[in-house]
């Protein structure tokens, strides 16, 4: 198959870069600097970078908690951490990893990369984007900080009632969990709306849906999943907040409440949540494989259909987390079948990639290594996932370390490994420098080895009866060896991750300069300079196929859009299906309002821990700051 597309127009007028115009463009899109300036930028790349960096900091923090967990469990009857502290640490570890690391980091990658990949200069609602980040930052810091003052929640990352009711968790912890989680979900929802609209409406002319890079597809699917999943956790949290604050009785059995209502609402969100984390990582894999095999991916349509199918099916699986609750057998069986079914879209994707890799000339650079690691680890985790979909089997391993093994295999192997691969892959675009390959390879092999040493024995532990979330276990049950092994492995694993963190840090100054397109990649983000200029694309591209850069290289020419003004932030709006240019959107510049609004909203959310009246205060404070930020500036520009 040749990449050249016949639709290049030979008669089109030539375009030259006018240096004066470039300068003006740069001026228009630049973000302010200085201490106040830090609170003002709205450009998607800056917001995206902040998301990514903040999320990885939370990863290291929560990872350090993971190590503490392992240290405590290394030997039986250990007294390093007391039970209350242990429960707080496990809860904070799980919650931070899921809500403050995994989701924000995929959002970060999406916000940074997706707009550049679709040839856009920014996202549809830049100020909302900034708002989402501040909300995440404030909520995250408040949540994690609670651990240091001994007020962290201790009811597990899914916070089951009645344990999380006021009666059994009287401290502030659960309140912090509910309010901060809600707060952070707001951030995820803003990002989702933002990403959906940007991807549907701001693609470069010619990039019809079936030409969209697979990563962008995966981001789109993720965003839709966020849209329909997150509201239920917000409702669940709200009900629990009300129970704890104003004595409503949603979860109080004696007054007609229902503990299982919490579980349904939570898992209706919680199951899609795990695929929200997985799906963008799958997109990264497609990107990396395409680039490092240097040829089109096999089964583009099948991959897209699988992503979409995963998104749909994942809303029909939540009850598989509740097999042991004594729900009627018949209903459960439906969820057993549905859960097993999700092996098909996942299998199709795995085998499409295998077919793409077969016989390809592969450059085994670090990003590719992490992706290869994915295949082994994710498949193991996926297979144990299919096992626990079987009700009788799940009744044995539910709530045990077998489960802990399952979900670390899929979360770390399925999501973290590809994302680290993505980090190595896009780092040159973000910073203009390459990360060290040598450190990268060491990091990978340590992490791969350490990971399996840590989590593989946990399967055995679960089968041998070790429940999860226990701060200690009595001697003589035969769990000692495996636990010690797991702890030893976790140290190796941490070393592996730390090497990447170190690599990230030193390469910023010392890395080899990358050039615009160090990997010979096919997608539009590599058409910008490294790091990109404030406006991303000097000219907005006109796209003729799935692999525009390869096409352009082969043809020796490219096509672009003209007519966007350089004295204000303008972007092309295109149609949803075929990306036909429709109109032009004028974007706002840097502003402090999103920060003000985020502070206003957090007053409400944090205040609610003290008194319900803050809900109303926060609501209206935020509302007025929104009006402030949306109020048209005088003089009303006549255009």
């Amino acid at each position, binding site marked *: 198959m040749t990449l050249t597309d016949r639709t290049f127009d030979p008669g089109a007028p030539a375009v030259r870069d006018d240096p004066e115009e470039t300068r003006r463009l740069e001026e228009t899109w630049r973000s302010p600097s200085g201490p106040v300036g830090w609170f003002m930028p709205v450009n998607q790349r800056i917001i995206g970078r902040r998301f990514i960096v903040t999320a990885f900091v939370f990863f290291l923090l929560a990872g350090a908690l993971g190590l503490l967990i392992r240290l405590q469990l290394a030997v039986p009857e250990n007294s390093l951490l007391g039970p209350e502290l242990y429960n707080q640490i496990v809860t904070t570890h799980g919650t931070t990893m899921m809500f403050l690391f995994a989701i924000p980091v995929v959002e970060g990658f999406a916000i940074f990369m997706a707009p550049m990949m679709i040839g856009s200069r920014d996202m549809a609602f830049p100020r909302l984007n900034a708002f989402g980040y501040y909300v995440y930052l404030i909520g995250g810091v408040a949540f994690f900080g609670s651990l240091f003052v001994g007020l962290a929640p201790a009811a597990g990352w899914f916070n089951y009632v009645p344990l999380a009711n006021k009666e059994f968790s009287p401290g502030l912890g659960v309140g912090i969990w509910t309010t901060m989680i809600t707060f952070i979900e707001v951030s995820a929802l803003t990002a989702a*709306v933002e990403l959906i609209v940007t991807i549907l409406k701001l693609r470069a002319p010619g990039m019809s849906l079936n030409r969209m890079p697979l990563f962008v597809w995966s981001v789109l699917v993720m965003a839709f999943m966020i849209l*329909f999943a997150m509201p239920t956790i917000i409702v669940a949290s709200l009900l629990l907040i009300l129970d704890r604050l104003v004595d409503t009785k949603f979860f109080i059995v004696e007054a007609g409440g229902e503990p299982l209502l919490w579980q349904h609402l939570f898992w209706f969100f919680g199951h899609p949540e795990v695929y929200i984390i997985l799906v963008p990582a799958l997109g990264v894999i497609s990107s990396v494989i395409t680039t490092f095999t240097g040829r089109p991916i096999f089964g583009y349509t099948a991959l897209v259909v699988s992503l979409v199918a995963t998104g749909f099916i994942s809303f029909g699986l939540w009850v598989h987390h509740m097999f042991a609750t004594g729900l009627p057998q018949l209903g459960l069986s439906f969820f057993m079948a549905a859960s097993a079914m999700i092996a098909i879209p996942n299998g199709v994707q795995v085998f499409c990639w295998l077919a793409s890799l077969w016989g390809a000339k592969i450059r085994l650079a670090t990003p590719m290594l992490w992706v290869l690691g994915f295949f082994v680890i994710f498949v193991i985790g996926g297979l144990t996932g299919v096992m626990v979909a079987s009700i009788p089997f799940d009744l044995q391993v539910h709530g045990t370390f077998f489960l802990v093994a399952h979900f670390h295999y899929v979360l770390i192997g399925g999501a973290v490994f590809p994302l680290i691969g993505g980090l190595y892959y896009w780092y040159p675009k973000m910073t203009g420098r390459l990360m060290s390959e040598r450190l990268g390879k060491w990091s990978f092999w340590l992490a791969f080895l350490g990971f399996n040493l840590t989590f593989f024995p946990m399967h055995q532990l679960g089968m041998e009866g070790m429940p999860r979330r226990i701060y200690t276990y009595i001697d003589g049950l035969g769990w000692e060896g495996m636990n010690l092994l797991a702890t030893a492995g976790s140290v190796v694993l941490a070393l592996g991750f730390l090497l990447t963190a170190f690599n990230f840090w030193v390469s910023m100054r010392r890395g080899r300069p990358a050039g615009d397109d160090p990997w010979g990649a096919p997608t539009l983000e590599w058409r910008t300079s490294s790091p990109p200029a404030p406006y991303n694309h000097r000219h907005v591209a006109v796209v003729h196929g799935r692999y525009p850069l390869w096409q352009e290289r082969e043809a020796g020419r490219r096509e672009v859009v003209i007519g966007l003004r350089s004295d204000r932030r303008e972007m092309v709006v295109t149609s949803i299906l075929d990306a036909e240019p*429709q*109109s032009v959107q004028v974007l706002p510049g840097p502003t402090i309002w999103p920060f003000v609004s985020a502070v206003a909203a957090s007053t409400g959310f944090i205040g609610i821990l003290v008194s319900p009246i803050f809900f109303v205060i926060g*609501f209206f404070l935020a509302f007025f700051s929104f009006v402030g930020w949306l109020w048209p500036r005088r003089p009303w520009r006549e255009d």
Partner: protein
Amino acid sequence: MDTRSTVDVAGFSRFAANRHPLWWGVLWLIMIELTVVSAFIVSYFYLMRSAEAWPPAGIEPPPLLWPSVNLALLLASMVTMWWASWGLNRDNRAVLIAGLSLSLLFHCTVLALRWREMQLFGFKWSDHAYGSIVWTITGFHFTHIASAIVGTAVVLVLAIRGYFNPERQLAVVVDTLYWYFVSAAWVPFYLTLYWAPRLL
């Protein structure tokens, strides 16, 4: 590399309200809220299903009269809101202002009626799960009406100051969209809160 231009957007509209990204943004915002509405309704029925008596013994389902009046008012406000944007499309500022004001009036009346109704509820949110869910849904809807009122009031102020014209009407379009949602959300809530305990 040989760079050619094949698309020139210099003459394209900078406002185009109906396909503006903001319109889509508000549409998705409404989808989020719709999910929230469904979650509340599902919770209501879940609690209802697992209760022995619904509402609990000794409590009557809330009276029908005023909520039904509210239903009429809310539906009417959708019409007046539509009328306002119809006026704007024809550059008729008087109709725009009248439509917006009438809609606001309807919603304010609803707010007052709901307030009155809440005073007359024979139970508190802390009495039992039934009270909790009824109060929560009521409060949720109440806050939304209130915020729609505030948003539309802002639009009204802008309208009076002559900001809008057929070309520049994004804020109106978006506000109208949200208004429709808030008003229409009463239909499922109304059926759930007032008819479900009677019929099911």
